[in-house]
């Protein structure tokens, strides 16, 4: 009987051990930038949800498309109405993994290069993407930064002929997230 209780205790301990290995944010910053001869398009979103598991190297993002702020209001409306169709596809998601996690020591403060592979879903189309970036480990937070490019055509986003010269076919995406260790308090305050 004693052993049984011991095992159950271990299970409980194991399952609660997610506190301490998981890092989360609800205020990550993602912005994109694309340049074409006539129109530079840039939009910022500072309400990005992201989480990372330092044990497994798993990393996920969830981005509400309506939260992207453009310089021009009309551009923002067109982005939501015509290109991203955010009524039908409200979120973009990324599910991936840090592939070089053996080179990253999350217990020692420092800046590490990270390689990430995963599946990016935008406009209901999923593509495999690879990105590189840095992870700055401090005692309080993990600060992640990355830049990568996507082709809008890969996500079934059609640029009409009338504006074809105005809008670039490829878009640079910048990611800047400050992840905090998940504990019961942060989970509570996050929700």
């Amino acid at each position, binding site marked *: 009987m004693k052993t049984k209780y011991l095992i159950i205790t271990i299970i409980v301990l194991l399952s609660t051990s997610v506190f301490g290995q998981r890092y989360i944010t609800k205020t990550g910053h993602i912005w994109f930038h694309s340049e074409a001869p006539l129109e530079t398009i840039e939009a910022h979103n*500072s309400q990005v*949800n992201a989480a990372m*598991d330092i044990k497994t190297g798993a990393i996920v993002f969830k981005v509400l498309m309506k939260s992207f702020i453009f310089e021009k*209001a009309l551009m923002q409306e067109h982005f*939501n109405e015509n290109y991203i169709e955010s*009524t039908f596809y409200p979120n973009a998601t990324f*599910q991936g993994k840090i592939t070089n996690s053996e080179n990253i020591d999350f217990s020692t403060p420092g800046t590490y290069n990270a390689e990430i592979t995963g599946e990016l879903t935008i406009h209901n189309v999923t593509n495999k993407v690879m990105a590189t970036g840095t992870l700055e480990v401090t005692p309080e937070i993990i600060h992640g930064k990355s830049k990568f490019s996507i082709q809008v055509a890969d996500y079934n986003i059609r640029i*009409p002929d*009338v*504006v074809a010269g105005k809008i670039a076919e490829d878009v640079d995406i910048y990611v800047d997230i400050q992840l905090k260790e998940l504990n019961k308090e942060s989970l509570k305050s996050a929700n």
Partner: protein
Amino acid sequence: MNLKSTIIAASMIWIQLGLFAQDDLMNMISEEKPTIEYTDATFKTTFLVIGQSIENPPVGNLIFNVQHRFGAINSGSYDFFGLDQAVTRIAFQYGLAEWLGIGIGRSSYKKTYDGWVKAKFLRQSTGLRKMPVSIDYYGNIAVSALKWSEPDRTNFFSSRLSFANQLLIARKFSPGVSIQLVPTHVHYNLVETKEDDNDVFSLGAGGRFKISKRVSINFEYYYIISQQTREQYTDPFSIGFDIETGGHVFQLYVSNAEGLIEEHIMGRTSGKWWNGDIHFGFNISRTFTIKKPKKFMGE
């Protein structure tokens, strides 16, 4: 439960935890707080066709409008089916707040200057707060700068004034279909004869139907309620296209109304559709971002 099965159960849970680490993480960040989701872009512009739509100019945006209405198509080939004549209104509008827009304009029809406000009371929303419709109040003052028709008698400045009050009630039923109702009141300080209505009431209805992502068909009809005006004038009916060209929206339409502001549309329209007494018109606009969103400040 013996020891062996306990260990099996334990290891199964452990494996599950590992396998679903990614999905689990995703679920963790997907727990969303319920929020109010406001309906955007009920109409593409601040005009339904020739009258007002529920939309206000975006905050910090200055919109320059040129509204152009040609002469009646039935004027024949001598006037090139109306294209020789035109009524235009040049106007500016500005978004002071998300719920408040203001504007000024000048139309060549009766040399009229106008100023208006449009204030939003209710915003259609889903989620935490469910609101089936958006409601705006629109009000304007128009000043005619025409020379007095009888300069010899005592003329008052107040005689140049007319006013319009509207409630704009709209619902976006789906991304492609929006409908709007417009109870309207127009007041003329001076009318031509004693019998003419100083106050004209009408009820408008309009809508838009998208036929592609960037093109929609819009229509607009006002039923004149006030009896005396009803006998003398006709109900304005307009139908047209909104065409999005990337940077701005181009509106093309035909209407039996010749006027460009409420005072000249509701209660002063005399053209009859069945006589071909209709006018071709278009609106063009250019938006200037005066106040940038926070993120773009100082960049």
